């Protein structure tokens, strides 16, 4: 065997063909023929890249333009409304943009929006996480599958249907709970009933409907992260002598926390913006009030837009609704910011990628 010429080719080549001890014999071509096709590139690839780059860049720019146009339109009309507002747009409790002397403000709407969503979250987060834990760690396989399927089904129900169900079925049934809460917990401001016995088309009922609507979001996302808990961490907890619930507390919940928070924030976003169901359930009013159990005192931004749009007899009426929509947008942004901050706060201890 002849020793190989010292510098026939670079020592490292793609495909690992170079072996120092043997003379390489490419199947075709002389010693100078480039036998590393992978280095040459396939002519067509670059053109494809360029076309795709152009398309995706164009799509991105188009999207930005569309968003900017929408934002500009909404801001312009919203500012128009605020300019003709005879009251203070942020602090006035009342909504009369269609009169000759338009007076309107979002104070009551913001309070109603936030309160109904808080009610929804207080109910939906514990129940949703509980259901998710039951599906992921307690229920036998068949039952877990069935429950998961039912939850997904709940998520697919259109909100009008929830609204119909809420007005026709749930509202009458809420009477008893309202009376009970009013008489036993009436000393807590939010449960104070100034008109006991009134038909319960209230913020509280709206919150309950919202809770049912957002429950599947929380459950589905929590179940996903709970199922991803590494077996090693669960076994670590069990081997320390944890009961099943203690294992869930030490291993599953901390691991799933970011996912539960993300799911809850998605749910909160949906609750804040939910329009039809609330509009159908609630009896609307424009007072700043904490009384969840009093009908006709309050409403939410989104429900007010749905109800007010048809009645807006002058452009100002529509502009005022647009301005309130912008406020809802800001609230949602703030909520998302808080959620991100909570998730990022313990980044160092990142439990999951969710």
């Amino acid at each position: 065997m002849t020793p190989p010429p010292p510098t026939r080719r670079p020592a490292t080549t793609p495909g690992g063909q170079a072996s120092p001890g043997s003379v390489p014999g490419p199947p075709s071509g002389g010693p100078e023929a480039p036998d590393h096709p992978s280095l040459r590139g396939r002519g067509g690839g670059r053109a494809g890249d360029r076309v795709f780059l152009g398309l995706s860049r164009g799509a991105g720019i188009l999207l930005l333009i569309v968003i900017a146009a929408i934002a500009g339109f909404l801001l312009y009309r919203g500012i128009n409304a605020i300019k003709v507002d005879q009251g203070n747009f942020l602090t006035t409790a009342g909504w009369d943009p269609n009169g000759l002397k338009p007076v309107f403000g979002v104070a009551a709407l913001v309070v109603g929006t936030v309160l109904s969503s808080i009610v929804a979250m207080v109910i939906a987060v514990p129940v949703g996480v509980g259901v998710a834990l039951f599906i992921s760690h307690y229920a036998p396989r068949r039952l877990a599958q069935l429950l998961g399927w039912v939850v997904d089904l709940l998520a697919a129900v259109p909100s009008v249907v929830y609204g119909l169900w809420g007005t026709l079925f749930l509202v009458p049934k809420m009477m008893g709970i309202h009376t009970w809460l009013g008489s036993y917990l009436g000393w807590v401001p939010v449960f104070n009933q100034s008109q006991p016995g009134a038909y319960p088309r209230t913020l509280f009922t709206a919150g309950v409907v919202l809770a049912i609507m957002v429950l599947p979001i929380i459950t589905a996302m929590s179940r996903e992260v709970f199922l991803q808990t590494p077996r090693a961490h669960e076994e670590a907890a069990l081997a320390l002598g944890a009961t099943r619930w203690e294992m869930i507390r030490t291993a599953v919940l901390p691991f799933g926390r970011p996912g539960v928070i993300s799911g809850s924030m998605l749910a909160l976003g949906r609750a804040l913006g939910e329009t039809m169901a609330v509009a159908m359930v609630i009896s609307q009013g424009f007072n700043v009030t904490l009384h969840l159990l009093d009908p006709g005192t309050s409403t939410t931004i989104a429900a007010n837009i749905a109800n007010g749009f048809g009645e807006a007899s002058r452009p100002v009426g529509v502009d005022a609704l647009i301005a309130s929509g912008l406020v809802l947008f800001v609230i949602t942004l703030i909520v998302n910011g808080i959620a991100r901050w909570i998730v990022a706060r313990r980044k160092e201890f990142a439990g999951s990628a969710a």
Partner: protein
Amino acid sequence: MAKRIDVDNLDAYYGKTKAVSGISMTVEPRSVTAFIGPSGCGKSTFLRTLNRMHEVIPGARVDGRVLLDDEDLYAPQVDPVAVRRTVGMVFQRPNPFPTMSVYENVAAGLKLNGVRKADLDDVVEKSLRGANLWEEVKGRLKKPGAGLSGGQQQRLCIARAIAVEPAVLLMDEPCSALDPISTLAIEDLMGSLKERFTIVIVTHNMQQAARVSDRTAFFNLEGPGRPGTLIEMDATEKIFSNPGVKDTEDYISGRFG
């Protein structure tokens, strides 16, 4: 504190498959016992029957008796949770809780046992010292446990396991994911831990078994496609110099299969 284990004719199943068959042995207190044997012969399975971790796998089941100082772990009135508090376990891959700090990791088992907050500091320090980790982590107890090196994480897991003062410590290939220096640190540690605990270690490393253990048990399959079983168990010097069974000698000298 350290307790003695007597196993009497134990079978372990995964669903319908029998993975381990007819094992009887005695593990002496205050000593290190090594389990060796080819892959898949049921060492891990058998180890996990000793603290009732086997049954957390769906469908898994055990027949036979395991006596811990004359108390049958599989008696009907025995609570598996209590068993696992008495018989601790360290896994092959270090598995500190990722969302917890070094301190919280060590304290995790103590909190389950309801140790008072005021006493935690002392026990955490004592356990970390016991795991030869204190000097390395005392300045970063509040940092994530998952941020330590692999060897440190494994010692953290040992600290977590010994913090609850178990009677027995089971270790399933505790060094197989570690570098030689960390391995040495953990081997040294076993020498000191055996004064307080009964230690059982599964290892594929013959030198390690010879270095750290007092007694060695050799496991093998009963035959191809058959469950694993105990072939022989004796003092470590005896197993490594003059084993009673030919298979043991073949396995130890690397002339196996």
